[in-house]
């Protein structure tokens, strides 16, 4: 059944199920993840399958849940800590930034932290300022962490399985809007290594770099642009750390133009860093300035129209791409 289509959340569950079956040291903790199966149903059924020792609910103690995960990882286990919203991970920043990210260096390479923090971010559903943030840049900034942002069920499964086999702390950042999206995931083993970008759509006129929930939106924009004769390539880095620089530079060398689309606020974002890499390393390949289309520099408001105005929409992407191509002047 190679044409099997499943939802993003089911792909994540399959990854956990397979890795828990494969390795008895993999276990999962989080709020409401055991009997209830988690707010997004990612861990549904795991308790019945693997028992209460390996699938457990926690009280609301984010700082220590994360710290416990880090400690268990240092002790050689393979913990997966689910944090309900990325906003809540802020309570555990000491353990992520000062402990998990630094342990390998501080111990001269003797200590490793194979710790996976699963959480979700992004806008959608009117959950307002403290439940809607896109905070990948905070983790991207900290040397020692891996930052993973799958956009499809296939990538979600393959990257989570890889995360549970590699030796470093992983910020596995899902998107609340993607859990119910469907995609192709063949039966059997899938592993997606970190640092390998994926071209989600081939094109020749402009490279659109996006990740997480900006991928489906950017693909819609690319479709609309195609109708106007513009061929956009859509590149998904899939992991921001490590970043597949080669794939980015290769695509830009082909298209000579680049627009980076990020849901996170524009200021201090990952997009700005990717743009700086491109201008430093591929300046002479460029026919136009690299443009970053980011979210507004604002907390996410509750009101639907304002929420939508806060982050890039399909129309914004189309408009920016045309501007970069001067297509608006030609028309």
């Amino acid at each position, binding site marked *: 059944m190679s044409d099997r289509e499943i939802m993003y959340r089911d792909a994540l569950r399959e990854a956990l199920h397979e890795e828990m079956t494969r390795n*008895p040291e993999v276990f999962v903790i989080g709020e409401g993840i055991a009997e209830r199966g988690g707010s997004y149903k990612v861990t549904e059924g795991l308790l019945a399958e693997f028992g209460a020792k*390996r699938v457990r609910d926690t009280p609301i103690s984010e700082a220590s849940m994360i*710290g416990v995960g880090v400690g268990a990882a240092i*002790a050689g*286990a393979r913990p997966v800590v689910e944090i309900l919203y990325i906003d809540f991970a802020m309570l555990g920043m000491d353990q992520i930034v000062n402990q998990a990210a630094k342990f390998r260096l501080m*111990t*001269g390479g*003797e200590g490793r932290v194979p710790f996976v923090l699963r959480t979700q971010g992004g806008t959608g559903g009117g959950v307002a300022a403290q439940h809607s943030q896109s905070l990948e840049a905070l983790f991207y900034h900290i040397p020692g962490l891996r930052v993973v942002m799958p956009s499809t069920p296939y990538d979600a499964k393959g990257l989570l399985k890889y995360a549970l086999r590699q030796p470093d702390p992983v910020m596995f950042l899902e998107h609340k809007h993607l859990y119910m999206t469907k995609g192709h995931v063949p039966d059997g083993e899938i592993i997606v290594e970190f640092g390998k970008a994926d071209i989600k759509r081939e094109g020749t006129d402009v490279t659109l770099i996006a990740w997480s929930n900006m991928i489906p939106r950017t693909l819609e924009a690319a479709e609309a642009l195609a109708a106007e004769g513009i061929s956009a390539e859509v590149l998904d880095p899939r992991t921001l750390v*490590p970043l597949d620089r080669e794939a980015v530079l290769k695509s830009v060398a082909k298209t000579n133009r680049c627009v980076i689309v990020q849901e996170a606020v524009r200021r201090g974002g990952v997009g700005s860093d990717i743009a700086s890499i491109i201008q430093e390393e591929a300046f002479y390949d460029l026919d136009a300035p690299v443009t970053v289309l980011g979210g507004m520099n604002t907390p996410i408001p509750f009101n639907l129209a304002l929420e939508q105005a806060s982050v890039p929409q399909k129309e914004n992407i189309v408009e920016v791409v045309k501007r970069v191509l001067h297509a608006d002047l030609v028309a």
Partner: protein
Amino acid sequence: MTKKAVARRKQNVPPKELLQDLFTTAYKIRNFESEGIKLYRQGLIRGYFHPYLGEEGIATGACAALEDRDYIASTHRGHGHCIARGASIDGMVAELLQKRTGYCKGYGGSMHIADITQNNLGANGIVGAGTPLGVGAALANQVRGSDAVTITFTTDGATNNGTFLEALNLAAIWDLNFILIIENNQYAVSTTIEESTREPDLYKRGLAIGVDSVQIDGNDSLLVYQTVSDAVEKCRAGKGPVLIEAKTFRHSGHHVNDPGKYMPEERLAYYKARDPVDRARENLITMGGMSAEEVRKIEEAIEKEFADAVEAAKNAGEITVEEFREFVSEY
């Protein structure tokens, strides 16, 4: 309990072997810190150095109650815990002298000495961070079906950090083999415990969340050994966790460059009259029947071991910038 421990318990008088162990460890720490401060004054050690002088009884007694399979997590004042856990003086001195032969190859320094091979999760520069890390190690061991016990050494200063309650509570609801030892030296840097809390009997915080908790004299290594042995036994029987508040006092300021002028002389005199190293020596002579000359021989061997370690470290090389760049190339 091991056969050795059972045999010790059957006797009312502690065996000479135990008393000798306790004195040897306590003196090793005393010598390491006293001589280390001299090296610091000579400019051979950079950065911070938080001496464990005056608190040796706690690490000494606690680690003597552990087996190889057990774990510890330490504090910023961590030299004593490492030594008591059996760390090599060579590796520790070399680390303080930033040499490649050091425990962390010179990447960590005083506050980050760890030894994964001895299940030592390491010292920690963030006050309080070791509590969730230790609970994590205890959780990993429960998941893998091991009866290993984890001790986190923490401080009175850390008890007003949120993770103190969070992590101890997690250990309690999961019945983990976890022992939290508060080294109550009565100061958070220069702020007294009385200024920091209305209830300076810190063990009562454990009682409030259903954890067996006791307060003891931390300057009595034999009492610490007996109390921790009981706690270990309780944990291995599935009745953990246990909280132990061990009262003690620093012999000097918070770190080598803090003269500790704020510490009242009479209180310091009170604790110096109950010096943990003197008491361990006294026990070995009076209860263990060892002569003063024999004791001195033990001390001389310890002093020589340290002096040799300093010579070896002085002659050792350092990690090169090229090696460092390679080490972090994937960050």
